[in-house]
């Protein structure tokens, strides 16, 4: 279900308008309805009051509504007499006025005896059947002068007579005839003594005539102060107790009581029947309200039509009224939606000076501000982005630099600690002998030959120690990047090579060093000692890293350079390690070389020295097959020599 919250303003306005108009329509309809109703009913009521007066006037002269009651009382009292079946008072049109059997009041008495009596005006009696029972009936006419007003009928029960023996019946019949005549006669005379009997009968007539003549009156009922119906156009009601609301109310003192009886479509007006100041009974007049009802339904239909038109007009009106309000709001809403979607160029049209116009102006201001601040933010973010980018680049650069430095430092520090560890080992090994044997010499009683031997050990190891210390000092000099003192002069590399190879005794290294040298090698400009160290380092390695096999030392010219290359058939170097062997402190880490002491500076020194001679390095190696490492120094030109 759609709640009021979800409705658009226009719908709300339309609904409010429609509701208002429906309300107004209903109100006017209700007003006219009530007015119609009231005027109709007051008409009838007014009529009833007039009628009541007329009735009262016609009855007042007769003074004696009570007599009518007395008549009925008389009839009923007489009926109680032993042997009497029933008593009837009949008017001159054969209509029963009062009867033992009250319900018969108003009926037309149809017995032949009655018509006989009324026509001829004399006493008749005879056997008759009443209510299915055999009776002996006597009818005595009621007269005023010569005028026949009606008749009195008295019926005797025949039970005793019929049960009696025939002989006795005659006697009984005679007695009955006599009794009944007396009774009828006395009744008739007592009624005749009620001076107004004729007038009483007249009331019923009056009622009948009024009903017949008036088109709008459908019922008139006269009720005595004991609620007994005296006269009514509906004869079946005469003599009965009227117990409807109106009668009761009036008997209890109301001046007038009106009500609609929709089931019978009548409008009932009950009023007291007063003669003089005396309350005598109730006059109840029923008006035909069919017209009223049809009229009302017509009004109702008309009202519905009016309401329908009202609704339609309300909708139209609501549209008419709401459009000028809603349209700008709708336009503003559309524009706002666009704005919300990110279109900051939108502009609301300002078509009026009212609140909506103000809103539109404020909106435009806001959109402008928004666009401006967005632009500002965009510009700012752009410069920010650039700044960030720039800073990031700078940072990346410095990070890169830092990383490089860090890597270098780490490598250096790692190499250094490894160097320290190796140096420590290299130093400790000879020191062990020096310390150990000297302690033995000091603390033990030793033989002369033992003493001699131990002193020898100490001497050997001391020499070694000093050598190692020299090496370490060399290394530390390179470490601190201090250039050696180079002394370059034109030399033949073959001479240096030969000198160096002689240094290795075959017995000591357990193999030969084969030299393979081109003859008449050109001279190079070099520091003899340093190049000697280079060659020595290369041969050292060839020995250290090849368990066996000859070592070949070559000297040749290639690409305008004099080359020295040392070849072994040793463990070789893996492809991955080749680029690093000339790095400071680099040593291949593998089982085969773990026990071989070294500082990883041999080849670094080689590279350093060769580079200083503007030379070139070359390395060829294969794991398990052997290594060839060589260097080439530029051939010394004649021009250079002459200089």
């Amino acid at each position: 279900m759609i709640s009021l919250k979800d409705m658009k303003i226009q719908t709300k306005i339309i609904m409010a308008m429609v509701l208002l108009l429906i309300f107004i329509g209903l109100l006017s309809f209700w007003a006219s309805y009530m007015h119609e109703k009231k005027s109709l009913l007051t008409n009838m009521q007014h009529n009833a009051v007039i009628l009541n007066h007329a009735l009262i006037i016609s009855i007042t002269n007769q003074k004696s509504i009570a007599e009518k009651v007395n008549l009925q009382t008389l009839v009923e009292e007489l009926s109680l007499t032993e042997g009497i079946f029933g008593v009837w008072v009949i008017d001159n049109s054969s209509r029963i006025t009062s009867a033992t059997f009250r319900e018969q009041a108003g009926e037309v008495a149809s017995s032949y005896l009655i018509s006989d009596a009324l026509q001829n005006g004399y006493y008749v009696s005879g056997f008759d059947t009443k209510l299915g029972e055999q009776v002996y009936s006597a009818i005595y006419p009621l007269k005023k002068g010569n005028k026949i007003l009606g008749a009195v009928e008295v019926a005797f029960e025949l039970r005793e007579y019929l049960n009696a023996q025939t002989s006795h019946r005659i006697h009984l019949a005679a007695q009955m005839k006599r009794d009944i005549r007396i009774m009828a006669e006395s009744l008739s005379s007592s009624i005749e003594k009620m001076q107004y009997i004729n007038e009483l009968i007249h009331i019923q007539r009056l009622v009948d005539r009024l009903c017949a003549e008036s088109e709008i009156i459908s019922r008139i009922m006269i009720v005595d102060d004991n609620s007994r119906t005296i006269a009514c156009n509906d004869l079946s009601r005469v003599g009965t107790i009227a117990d409807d609301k109106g009668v009761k109310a009036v008997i209890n003192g109301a001046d007038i009581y009106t009500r609609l009886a929709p089931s019978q479509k009548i409008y009932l007006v009950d009023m007291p029947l007063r003669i003089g100041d005396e309350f005598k009974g109730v006059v109840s007049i029923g008006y035909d309200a069919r017209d009223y009802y049809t009229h009302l339904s017509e009004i109702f239909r008309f009202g519905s039509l009016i309401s329908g038109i009202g609704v339609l007009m309300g909708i139209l009106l609501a549209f008419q009224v709401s459009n000028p309000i809603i349209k700008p709001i709708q336009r503003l809403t559309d524009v706002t939606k666009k704005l919300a979607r990110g279109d900051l160029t939108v502009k609301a049209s300002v078509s009026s000076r009212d609140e909506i116009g103000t809103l539109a102006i404020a909106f435009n201001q806001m959109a402008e501000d928004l666009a401006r601040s967005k632009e500002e933010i965009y510009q700012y973010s752009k410069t920010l982005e650039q700044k960030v980018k720039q800073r990031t680049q700078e940072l990346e650069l410095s990070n890169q630099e830092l990383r490089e430095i860090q890597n270098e430092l780490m490598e250096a520090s790692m190499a250094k600690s490894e160097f320290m560890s190796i140096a420590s080992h290299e130093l400790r090994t000879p020191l062990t002998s020096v310390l150990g044997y000297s302690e033995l010499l000091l603390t033990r009683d030793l033989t002369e030959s033992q003493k001699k031997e131990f002193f020898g050990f100490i001497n050997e190891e001391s020499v070694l120690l000093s050598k190692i210390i020299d090496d370490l000092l060399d290394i530390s000099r390179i470490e601190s990047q201090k250039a050696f003192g180079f002394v370059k002069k034109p030399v033949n590399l073959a001479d240096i090579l030969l000198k160096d190879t002689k240094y290795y005794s075959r017995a000591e290294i357990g193999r030969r060093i084969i030299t393979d040298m081109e003859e008449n090698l050109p001279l190079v400009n070099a520091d003899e000692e340093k190049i000697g160290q280079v060659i020595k380092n290369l041969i050292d390695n060839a020995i250290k890293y090849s368990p066996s096999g000859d070592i070949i030392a070559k000297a040749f010219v290639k690409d305008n350079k004099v080359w020295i290359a040392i070849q072994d058939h040793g463990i070789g170097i893996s492809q991955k390690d080749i680029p690093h062997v000339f790095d400071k402190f680099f040593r291949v880490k593998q089982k085969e070389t773990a026990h071989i002491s070294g500082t990883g500076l041999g080849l670094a020194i080689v590279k350093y020295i060769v580079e200083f001679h503007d030379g070139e390095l070359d390395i060829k190696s294969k794991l398990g097959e052997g290594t060839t490492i060589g260097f080439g120094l530029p051939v010394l030109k004649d021009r250079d020599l002459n200089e």
Partner: protein
Amino acid sequence: MNKILIVDDEEKVRKLVEITLSIGKVEILQASSGEEGLKIARETRPDIILLDVMMPGRFDGFDVCKLLKEDPATRDIYIIMLTAKGQKADKEKGFASGADDYFVKPFSPMELMEKIDKVLS
């Protein structure tokens, strides 16, 4: 008689240990490489092994120590690492491989003797 094995590639060091311990009643066995030391240790089950770390060949001192300590038959041998590698990390590596003691080169022969006496008693 107690057996002591000395494993070191340096002959001078082996000899130093041998002479140092010669005054005690011990039998001195010698090996010049890790492989040889391992072989002799398994064959003779010495009471103590003095084991050098940096040696040529397939096994260094740490390898030998580990192999002996993993083998139930040789697990109980008291192993003293004898090495020129005096740094803390090296010591830790030595103990990690199961060594019982550590002796740094250069060492005093008297101290070595005292240590061995202590172990044997």
